């Protein structure tokens, strides 16, 4: 079951790359890379290299897709695997919703930190986001909050005072 799930994931990702490659080749490259009048006759324009890459992505994605589909069909036709599927065996340990969502929540928090960093500055953004992140990760020891805070202060000193980076 684990293998089937992995292959399904591969089929989706390869399809995304194929679709993305086609989008680039058909719409994005013509729209985003202008070719000047006198360049049209040249063999190698600004578009050539991106075109070579995107078409290569499409070809490799198709090959990858075919390969994964073949593997998927082979696995599905395997009687042992089908039996497992029928019995509904749980190959994975059950994860809580929070456990699944935590990377995305952390990503959201990083985005918020980036926005606050730009708008209200490093110190305030860090004071707000750092404890929230520690709390979300399950940190309940005050000492850990102090350590992370000290690190944040050290980063400020190093970048702002020693390296003269104009932090917002």
């Amino acid at each position, binding site marked *: 079951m684990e293998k089937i799930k992995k292959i399904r994931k591969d089929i989706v990702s*390869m399809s995304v790359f194929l679709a993305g490659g086609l989008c680039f080749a058909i719409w994005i490259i013509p729209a985003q890379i202008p070719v000047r009048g006198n*360049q049209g006759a040249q063999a*190698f324009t600004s578009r050539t290299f991106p075109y070579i890459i995107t078409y290569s992505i499409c070809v490799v994605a198709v090959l990858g897709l075919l390969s994964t589909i073949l593997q998927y069909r082979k696995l599905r036709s395997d009687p042992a695997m089908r039996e497992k599927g029928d019995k509904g065996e749980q190959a994975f340990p059950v994860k809580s919703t929070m*456990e699944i969502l*935590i990377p995305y929540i*952390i*990503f959201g928090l990083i985005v918020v930190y980036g926005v606050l960093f*730009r708008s209200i500055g490093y110190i305030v953004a860090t004071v707000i986001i750092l404890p929230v*992140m520690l709390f979300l990760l*399950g940190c309940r020891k005050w000492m850990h909050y102090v350590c992370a805070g000290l690190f944040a202060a050290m980063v400020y000193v190093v970048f702002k005072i020693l390296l003269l980076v104009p932090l917002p």
Partner: protein
Amino acid sequence: MIDIIKNILTFENILMMNVGVAAGIIIGCLPGLNVIFAIAVLLPLTFGMPSIAGMYLLLGAYCGAIYGGSISAILINTPGTPSACATVFDGYPLAQQGRAGDALKTALVASVVGGLVSCFALLFFAPQLAVFSIKIQAPEFFALCIFGVTAAVGIAGEQIFKGVIMALLGLLMSTVGIDTTEGTQRLMFGHIQLMAGLKVAAVMLGVFALSEVMSKAQEVYATRRGSSAIPITFTKANIKTREILSHWKEIVMSSVFGVIIGAIPGTGGAICAMFSYNTAKRMSKHPEQFGKGCIEGIVAPECGNNATSGATLIPLLTLGIPGDAAVAVLIGALTMQGITPGLHLFTQDKVWVNAIMGGLFAINILMYFQGALFIRLFANVTRIPMVIMLPCIMILCVVGSFAINNASFDVIVTILIGFLGYVLKKCDYPIAPMTIGLVLGNLAETNLRRALIMSNGSPLIFVTRPISFVILLISFISLFAPLVKHTFDKIRGKGGVAV
């Protein structure tokens, strides 16, 4: 000569070497954080520094992190970096016998010896390769870029299609910005900040460091009640350095392997460590002792993996081709300082080559003293809970990406690339080919264009010139060899081809 030494051994340079080594050891001994991460995180600190001091900080981190991986391998049975994967086999059993200090000292001495041998290799072989590289023209350079990219795909192991897609994605990312030949805007989507292209440093911070924050968050949350205490108590080392050096056969053999393997793009310390360990075991008079805590079992992999450190710089300094993803990040640092690695470093910017070669020697010697004096302190680093590390890494990434150009736009790039990196890692896509593709993209395109101009548009130029033909042939063999091997295995009924 004295002038070179004087230039290298300034207070600032020595300080940066020490800081780099210490940071590298600390990051290296934290499981899950690797050499690339160490360099990527320290990269922003170099922007405001003199170029040589900044380079020493990163080189120190590079060497320190390779060694640092052995500390957690010995003390908590978890290799801090993939390079230390073979150190676990004998390091941990030796520590379990109450000889943790001996195991750590053995790893330190072997690492330093391996590193010094690697420096000599860099010193002697890099100029030879540089002389050879004079013969190289645009078609050969393009072939070398293809070789670098296909070698990086080799890192992906059996996941050939995924590796190739990632390398192509990296090449596509390298086309963002103004086309330097024709002055055309490419894939900028109206953002003037992308005129100079995607900043390699911003991409590296996102793809290696920030994505790791998201990946590790799940692990940290799942094990939030667990602690990362050291199960083995630290003991003082009783083993003498000469006892370790008495295993000279393993040291020489592993160092040679390290230099050879390290100089081949797309290989790296982990492969060399495993290869050295297996060879030492096969050649040993008492192979039954391997895996039970024998000294040779630590000497061989540690010497081997550190011997790759200088050797990976040989293709970088002579041809401008990164040997692995860690060196690709170093290229990013060099580029930020306005230095383009390649042959002209040996002809025009010789100061740089001397500084790097001499600096590596000094770094390895400093690493020995740091390891000998502060090993207990470094061992305690494995106690730092990941829950503290993650927010700290996030802060460092955001501030670091801002510091690249003092622009918030780079922060946005880092965050978005970080998320992309997380999703790709989750789908088992290897990241290293993408970074090498990004670094080599411009070089590849420029030389492809020049080669086609040379041949009036005929792509046959790549196969009619012997050097470029041989390089391309090796590239395609290295790319398709795992696929062919798997097909044969499949025919014999051993298994299928992984995507």
